[in-house]
């Protein structure tokens, strides 16, 4: 219990240093509408697929709990309602991003669409980040003309929570890979740290899907080329949540994770496009990233490797993250 209490105190102290409610609040307030603009844009794009969704029909449609009301309606009515409600509520929130009512309806609209995509057997996680971030943003405080410092700090805190949630999911993915790497290593199988891990993933995927990708053949023929990028990907994923507390790394991690999605698409055609826009809004444009920072500070604050770098170069200067 004491350990938990100490850990909580450390986390909240670290948060206080990041979430100040001054310049970060101003930037977060500017960025917020872009989330809803983007949500409307993608919801409108989904509307393009409405005809196809109706034509495909309701075979295999097993509604998740948010669509429990749908049992009384024909499939065409359900799909049309879900798609139009998602686009309409996203547009509403784009116009009134600072209204909690608008943000709640945008969340409900997205929940309906998300539940629809997950109602055909297996789960579909493309829009998970969007859904949960839309949920988190509901809790933004009401902003008046001259908000108090408490309100400004609370606003920044909710924005940071959305960032931290986004990063947390990558950490969970990284922990999963680390756990299974240990199991596979112990049983003598190729594992996530094996030099040919990236090539094996790519070849298996391309053989099964029977497709070619721009970079797939290259790394299948030269498996070692993918080793370092694969290890960097493990670092980016596993330690992502730590980066939430190191604002000087926000932009770099955002770029790294976008490159990871681009890389897996260009090699094994893993289509996971939806989170990249969020990585751009919440990390590439992070309101908590310092205006100016030295390359040395950035490099030394990288989890594990920064620490190793400091040890190797006998750096004695204390970085902000050593607190």
């Amino acid at each position, binding site marked *: 219990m004491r350990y938990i209490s100490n850990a*909580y105190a450390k986390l*909240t102290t670290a*948060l206080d240093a990041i*979430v100040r409610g001054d310049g970060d609040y101003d930037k977060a307030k500017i960025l917020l509408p872009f989330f809803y603009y983007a949500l409307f844009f993608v919801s409108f794009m989904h509307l393009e697929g409405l005809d196809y969704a109706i034509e495909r029909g309701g075979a295999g449609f097993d509604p*998740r*709990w948010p669509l429990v009301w749908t049992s009384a309606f024909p499939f065409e009515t359900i799909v049309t309602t879900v798609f139009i409600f998602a686009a309409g509520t996203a547009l509403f929130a784009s116009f009134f991003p600072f209204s909690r009512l608008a943000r709640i309806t945008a969340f409900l609209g997205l*929940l309906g669409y*998300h*539940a629809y995509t997950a109602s055909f057997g*297996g*789960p579909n*996680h493309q829009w*998970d980040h969007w*859904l*949960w971030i839309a949920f*988190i943003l509901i*809790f933004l*405080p009401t902003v008046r003309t001259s908000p108090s410092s*408490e309100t400004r*700090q*609370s606003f920044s*805190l*909710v924005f*940071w*929570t959305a960032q*931290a*949630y986004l990063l*947390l*999911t*990558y*950490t*969970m*993915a990284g*922990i*999963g890979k680390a756990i*299974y*790497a240990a199991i*596979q290593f112990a049983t003598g199988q*190729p*594992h*996530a740290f*094996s030099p*040919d891990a990236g*090539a*094996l*993933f790519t*070849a*298996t995927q*391309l*053989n*099964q*899907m*029977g*497709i070619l990708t721009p970079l797939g*053949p290259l790394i*299948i*023929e030269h*498996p070692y080329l993918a080793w370092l990028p694969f290890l960097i990907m493990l670092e980016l994923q596993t330690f992502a*949540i730590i980066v939430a507390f190191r604002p000087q790394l926000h932009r770099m991690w955002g770029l790294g994770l976008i490159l990871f999605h681009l890389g897996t698409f260009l090699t094994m055609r*893993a289509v996971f496009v939806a989170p990249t826009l969020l990585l751009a809004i919440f990390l590439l444009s992070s309101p908590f990233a310092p205006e100016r920072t030295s390359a040395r500070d950035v490099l030394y604050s990288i989890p594990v490797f920064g620490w190793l770098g400091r040890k190797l170069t006998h750096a004695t200067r204390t970085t902000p993250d050593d607190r």
Partner: protein
Amino acid sequence: MNYATGKGYAILFLTLYASIGFATHALSNNSGEDAYPFFSWFLFVNVPPRIQTGFDVHTVEVNSSQSLRQSALFRDEGLMRRDIVALENRIGQAAKSGNAEEIRSARRSIESRLPAGTVYRVREITYDPLKYFISKSVLIESTVSEFTAP
């Protein structure tokens, strides 16, 4: 909600999300199912083995002339390669397990795309995925079944 309380809720939310996600994975026995809308994010966690097995369909004879064009006939019909792979695995698994109904259904799908009289072989293959991708070379092959398109 004031800032101090908000901090507590933020950390509680992140902890709960991760805990439920991991619990979901543990309880679902890595089946990919989830406690909607929570998820463990355990994606691509198992590195594929260096030796893999699967099935392919090999045309042996087309209109009495010997031909060994692997799956080429399907492609001529405009079928996507991924559909061919799925079809090959479907008939292979059905033939291996002796599932007569599934064999009939898979044969219909295959034979509707083949000229009448085409003889084709369903093979179980063992291969190195890297070498198989580059040259389609297999380590072990065995015929599971042979059919003739009506």
